[in-house]
């Protein structure tokens, strides 16, 4: 105390830096308690054999890297990672295309869209529904005797009901469709923010030079939108790797058919049937590393382009 008061006498100017730190304390405290400590204990747990056999606790017993070896050697993880990536891409590619198109339309001054605010709200709405409720809804709509099949059959388009949830690509397609519907509104808003940040003078200059709308889009909008696009890509990728609730509810946790809609996190969840903290921990750590590497790679490529 004496030292600080001494300082104050000397400098006579008020320092506010420490308030910055004080206001950061709540964040760091919550981060430590709810993120950092769980992260460290997960890594710690992954080196132990530790599960429940009925009501009996097995372990914890230190087994080194055995959990990692088991997970990597049985090959399931690769298959489930493939499922996850396929379902993410099936949702993400249409999502980014539609969002770009919508964002371009919404920000185009010459189009003068009416009721833009209304549409912006509507496209964002699906994101407000809880993913599990949304999946439950799709589950009943697309069930074997559900409304979709009834309508198609009554309209004479099909004779036998389509068994959406017993077929690989329809199941994956439904998961992708749901993810698309839930997130394209959010992406549109983000991209719009990016597009509105672009200096309109550039568009006008392009027009004067006789650029067509498509050329303006590819030569001006897209390059200047890159930082936002990268942000969208990274967040969506992380979200994609963590895909869980939609396929879990839609397939009733089974990842049916033939585990082709089983995502990595669903697999992780399976290990919790016997509270297998060791295996689940090892899988989490692998996921953490993979996510970290992917994010870093994308980030680095972005930074490199910026310098250039």
């Amino acid at each position, binding site marked *: 105390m004496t030292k600080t008061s001494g300082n104050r006498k000397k400098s006579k100017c008020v320092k506010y830096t420490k*308030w910055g730190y*004080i*206001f950061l*304390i*709540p964040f760091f*405290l*919550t981060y430590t308690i709810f993120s950092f400590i769980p992260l460290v204990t997960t890594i710690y747990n992954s080196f132990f054999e530790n*599960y*429940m*056999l*009925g*009501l*009996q606790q*097995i372990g914890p017993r230190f087994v080194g890297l055995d959990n990692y070896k088991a997970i990597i050697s*049985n090959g*399931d993880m690769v298959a489930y990672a493939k499922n996850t990536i396929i379902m993410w891409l099936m949702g993400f590619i249409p999502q980014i295309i539609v969002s770009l198109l919508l964002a371009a339309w919404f920000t185009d001054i010459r189009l003068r869209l009416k009721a833009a605010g209304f549409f912006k709200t509507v496209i964002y709405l699906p994101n407000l529904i809880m993913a599990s409720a949304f999946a439950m809804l799709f589950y*009943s709509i697309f*069930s*074997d*005797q559900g409304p979709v099949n009834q309508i198609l059959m009554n309209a004479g388009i099909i004779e036998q009901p389509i*068994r959406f949830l*017993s*077929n*690989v690509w329809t199941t994956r397609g439904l998961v992708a469709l749901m993810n698309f519907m839930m997130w394209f509104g959010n992406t549109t808003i983000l991209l719009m923010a990016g597009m509105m940040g672009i200096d309109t003078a550039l568009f006008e200059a392009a027009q004067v030079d006789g650029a067509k709308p498509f050329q303006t889009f590819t030569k001006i909008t897209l390059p200047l939108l890159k930082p936002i696009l990268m942000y969208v890509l990274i967040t969506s990728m992380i979200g994609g790797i963590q895909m869980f609730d939609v396929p879990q509810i839609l397939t009733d*946790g*089974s990842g*049916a*058919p*033939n*585990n082709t809609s089983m995502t990595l996190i669903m*697999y992780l969840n*399976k*290990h919790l*049937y*016997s509270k*297998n903290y060791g*295996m689940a921990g090892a899988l989490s750590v692998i996921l953490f590393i993979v996510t970290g590497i992917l994010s870093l790679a994308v980030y680095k490529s972005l930074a490199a382009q910026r310098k250039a």
Partner: protein
Amino acid sequence: MKKKLLSVCLATSMAATLFAGCGGNTADNDKNNEPKESKDSQSTKEDKKDDTSKDEEGKVFRIYCWNDEFKGLFDTYFASEVPSDVKVEWVSTPSKDNAYQQKLDQGLLDQDKASDDDKIDMFLIEADYALKYVDSDYTLDVINDIGLTEDELSDQYQYTKDIVTDSDGKLKAVSWQATPGLFAYRRSIAKEVLGTDDPEEVQKQLSDWDKFDEVAKKMSDGGYKMLSGYDDSYRVFSNNVTKPWVDENDNIVIDDNIMKWVDQTKEYTDNGYNNKTSLWATEWSADQGPTGKVFGFFYSTWGINFTLLGNSLETPLPEGLTKTSDPDAYKAATEGNGIYGDWAVCEGPQAYYWGGSWLCAAKGTDNPTLVKQVMEKFTCDKDTMKTITLDTEDYTNSQSAMKELADDPDYGSAFLSGQNHIALFSSAAPKIDMSNCTPYDQGLNEAFQSAFKDYFNGTVTKDEALENFYKAAVVKYPNLKYK
């Protein structure tokens, strides 16, 4: 200086609200997990502080269960006998995906730490995982700890006691029901396709699996389905296995009889003899209702009075209406409602059982007397059990009461169009053999059915389905091995 004080206050209050927010949330979550009554129990907690005598029994009677079957019985037959100052709390968790056992296990593991009111007093278990709890220290000995006598228990079916007797010979649970299985079929369809709806005649045509297959073909030719889904006949095969699921070295063993189920179901699916539904799915339930085109269902006792009856109705019964509470209203509500009365039962191709619920006294209960009373009432009291059977048509665990009903020429179930199903059950009950049960049954049965669904749907080959089953099994039970 004032400014500084103010900002410190602001900062701390901000941090405090942040944590208060978190804390509040977790508290809320806890509340959500617990039954709604927790507010009311607060007053009883305060009462408890006053009387220090430990003779007094707990004021909260907590029962863990997975559906409201037993709650219905409890409310109808026992609620009036609960002391007025004791609150009964039901903690119901669906059994799907092991959710019930997870919840129950957590409760049992925390039993020592929990306050008296939060302690589990009694819980229900099913045959598929009964051994897990029977062979643990978390269940009390019904005879030595709770105080039921051998004499009282002697009227129960022996198998209902055998399965819940632990390796030291202690009886750890009691059941109010015995669950022999039968084949329930639609009378109208039987008449149309087989020319008769008489249970004895129909049974002759279904007495073994070859004949069963023949009838399946006839049903298909007549525009009907023999069974609703893939899993319908599963229990009939899985209960007639010669080996348990897991051998003494923790290896998974697939019995030949279970593979017979696979082959039969694949054949039925490919020939269109079933409706490709799954157990408990909406479509499966609908197949048991007025719009159903399915000939029959394998069901044990509870399935007929509890599940099938409910599904067969066009409009559900009003809440709380039972046969004895208001016979006229019950008759009016059921007659002509959906396909009530269009069902009959016969033994089917093989004897089997399915399910069954047992009552366990949780170690650490603070209401042992009440637990004893409940167990006595529902599993030892012949009159109550007979009334339950008369009311609900469930098959209760009193050999003598069931024999009386089986021999009673006037007794018949209106739902089964006057058939005395108790007679059939009582001849099937002694055949029940649960010696091949393991603590893994539920998880492995579920994994097996789920893995082979893909095979029936044609997405995978038989070997791939087996491989998928093994993989799912070892994830569920890390100690198990295969091949």
